[in-house]
């Protein structure tokens, strides 16, 4: 297990390094460099940067150096000072922009993921055990609706229902009266309440997919001889269900960790726009459209790193949960 972990981490570090190089080249891709953009911006404002100023800036970002030195300066800034560069669009350091949106996004995506797990776990098991029953058909129907209706449509519908029938304002982080308020129990409750609907909307699509996967996997496991064998030794139905087949069918749940983390950043752009949620998705979109390369590149880098981390976490979790993965990771080769 330790060997496996070390090997897995080693590979992921290599992957992250390669990703950072790709991101660096994406940032460098548009014509002109960082300083020339600054000069152009200053001219627009009617100012003029002195030659000395320009030289200082060029030196600061190592623009007079070859590309690998520039890469090194860039990545060193990120590693040591968490300095992702400067966003021209926002006229602020990219780090500030990211940090403004990231925490809430993680909160929302994490909430959506947990919601997804709970719903999919319960309904997945139910539909697999009671296959072809009325309940199965009902949830299957519901699942397919969740799968096929675009999330932003759901968001609109939810907004309408919430407003028309419950008088709730869906959208944004807080209800109007709490936006400027100090932190208090009531404000936290309001935040949770406002989070619940978007989390539910984002969770729907993932839930529907996961229910189908769980149902299919568990259906396969339920007829395995080891289930019959457990029954034959006199184990109770509920205990043996959760202990044996469900345990074996859990792997897709663990795998979702891998792809849930990247969706934290990039996912749900439209839903966030519709619900005017301050998540990173719309910011990334804006950065890409405006060629705000440092911000976009930073997002891409964070996205890539999170994807790798997510995969590593789900791999390690899988190995921890499944002895077949844990104890067999050597293969025959020529």
């Amino acid at each position, binding site marked *: 297990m330790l*060997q496996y972990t070390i090997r897995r981490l080693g590979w992921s570090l290599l992957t992250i390094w390669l990703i950072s190089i790709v991101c660096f080249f994406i940032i460098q891709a548009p014509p002109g460099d960082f300083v020339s953009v600054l000069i152009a911006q200053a001219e627009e404002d009617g100012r003029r940067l002195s030659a000395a100023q320009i030289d200082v800036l060029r030196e600061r970002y190592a623009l007079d150096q070859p590309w690998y030195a520039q890469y090194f300066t860039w990545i060193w800034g990120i590693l040591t000072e968490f300095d992702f560069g400067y966003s021209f669009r926002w006229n602020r350091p990219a780090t500030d922009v990211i940090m403004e949106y990231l925490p809430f996004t993680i909160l929302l995506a994490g909430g959506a993921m947990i919601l997804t797990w709970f719903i999919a776990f319960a309904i997945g098991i139910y539909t697999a055990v009671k296959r072809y029953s009325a309940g199965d058909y009902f949830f299957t129907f519901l699942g397919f609706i969740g799968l096929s209706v675009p999330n932003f449509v759901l968001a609109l519908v939810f907004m309408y229902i919430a407003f028309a029938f419950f008088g709730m304002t869906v959208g944004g982080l807080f209800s109007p009266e709490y936006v400027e308020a100090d932190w208090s129990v009531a404000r936290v409750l309001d935040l949770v309440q406002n989070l619940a609907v978007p989390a539910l909307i984002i969770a729907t699509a993932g839930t529907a997919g996961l229910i189908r996967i769980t149902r299919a996997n568990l259906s396969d496991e339920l007829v395995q001889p080891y289930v019959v064998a457990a029954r034959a*030794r006199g184990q109770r139905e509920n205990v043996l269900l959760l202990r044996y087949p469900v345990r074996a069918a859990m792997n897709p749940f663990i795998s979702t960790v891998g792809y849930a983390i990247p969706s934290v950043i990039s996912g749900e752009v439209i839903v966030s726009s519709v619900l005017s949620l301050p998540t990173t998705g719309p910011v990334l979109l804006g950065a890409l459209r405006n060629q705000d390369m440092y911000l976009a590149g930073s997002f891409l880098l964070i996205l890539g790193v999170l994807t790798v981390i997510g995969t590593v976490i789900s791999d390690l979790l899988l190995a921890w949960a499944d002895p077949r993965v844990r104890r067999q990771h050597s293969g025959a080769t*020529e």
Partner: protein
Amino acid sequence: MSEAVLTETGADAAVPASSSPLLDIRGLTVEFPTEEKLVTAVDTADMAIYPQQVHCLVGESGSGKSQTARAALGLLDPPGRIASGQLLFHQSDGQVLDLATLKPRGRRMRHIRGGEIGMIFQEPARSLSPMHTVGFQIAEAMRLHRGLSRAEAYEAAVDALADVKIPRPELRAKAYPFELSGGMRQRAMIAIALAGRPRLLIADEPTTALDVTTQAQILQLLRDIQSEREMAILFITHDLGVVADMADEVSVMRSGQIVERQEVHRLFAAPEHDYTRMLLAATPKLRIKPTEPLADRATAPSTPGAQSADAEGVDKLATEQQAPKQRIPEQLAPEQLTGEPLISVRGLTRSFTLKSGLLGRTRHVLHAVDDVDLDILPGETLGLVGESGCGKSTLAKCLLRVEKPSSGTVTQRLTDRTPTEVAAAPEASLRAYRQQLRMVFQDPFGSLNPRMTVRDILAEPLRHQQVAVRTSGTGARRPEAQGTSRPITDERLVELLELVGLQAGHLDRYPHAFSGGQRQRIGIARAIATDPQVLVADEAVSALDVSVRAQVLDLMGQLQDTRGLSYLFISHDMSTVEHLSDRVAVMYLGKLVETAPTAALFAEPKHPYTETLLSAVPIADPVRQRSRQRVEISGELPDPTKKPSGCPFRSRCRFAEEICATDTPALRDVGPGREAACHFAEELDLTGVAR
């Protein structure tokens, strides 16, 4: 149905008059309602299992054996249900309980399961949860039926592993099922089944998935436990050899009905029912002398009722189609085995490197095939036997060049008068060779493409053959010059089908429309389509039922006679090999340990491993089987990466001496046409199969 009439003569005679049955099955009917029709899996079956008896329930696949047992424990898979009948179980307190009336998931049934009746299954690999340790699963049963605490139960589980003779039980208890050998898994299953100290053990084909040596060990263990614990066993099997070895009473089942019930010696000596006679006739018995074809006897009682709903059982169509019966393949005498070998293997080695450890730096080299010398002579059947994992299939793959040998030579005289080397030949030059050396596969279901019709399946090798002829010609195409480049006409395909006992009408059907035996016939037709000289049959009949197997074996014998084929017949089933082969090669851990003419090998083995294998094969005759001198089979096949030094068999050999650890014995002449790789081949007096 007429043959449903129960032949019960003698059944009562064998029963101890004093005791009442432990489990009395009366008129049991099990139904599976499906959307199209109602399938009756068990049809008014009567059976009585007495205390301390081994009751064998024998029948072919789909006969309802397992469903009978499962019904008793309320373990029928949905939508199966007990439609009628009683399952009277005599509890230890003297009360009689009808298991058929219990709720399958109720508390009382759960007490019966494991507490009164234990059960072990066919596939130990899949009957243990891969996510939990073996110790955990045994301890679970201990806690359920002995009311032990978690810690006590685990200790009891370790003890139970020791009881089923697993070495180092503390260590094994912590192992996951996939880390144990098949034999150990089945021992662990037995430990689970015995945890609640049941009075009846249901064993559903417990040794079918195991090697013959492991089977012998497990059967021995079951016998010991049965007498130790004074338990009754309901033993479900299709193998009459196992029946002869284990049974006190036998019930024969066919198409859901019990057609005969007899004491074991009487059943074998004087079977009452036609079906029993057919089964007995179709089972190779390690015969005393060459006899008439198996299928002749196998199909004698082909009554109208033989056609069961699921097309299994007797492969009827084939028997109708077959030309007048040919004799059984007569074994060629050693002096008849002459001529230049068609394929000659020298020093063949196929090794794999296993990586483990950090960055895969620890490497184990596994020699799946290790320095093998072998000849296939014209017209002979060479049997290749050995436990699973000994390299039989890898050797076959090397011959076909599906695997590329690591070293050694394979010289063939199939495509040309002059010997040609194929072990390292480029892929492109192998086409003609592969048309002369063809393969029949084990799995009749997996080896035919379900999306191709029989026509496509048979035409495929012919199409490639034509391409081969065209491209191999020196410029000018001469389609008439060679018979092999005839166009692929329907007549040609029908001819092939009729050769294997199928009809023209089958040409446009898909594989799923055929039974297992028929599919294997299609597989054979495909193999002989290119008119090859050598067929490699890798466990080609292992997946088939007894009666169907006999027919396919006879077909192979006929084809050999009419087409002068040579066979490399790979099998773990010694009695089938004995039935078909002229010569036998025995393989152990990648090495050939003995080759000999069949009769000589079975009568007087020269290598201790051969003796072990022979001793492990149960002979389908209770008198012979029970009077045999048994050779203790010690240990299991070692991990191939940890092959013992010197003689690979020395770790399990009862004659091993110091020299065996230091010197690897080479295969050497030990008699006419015989070779053995043992230092003491001449001195040892080994036990063959009693004749």
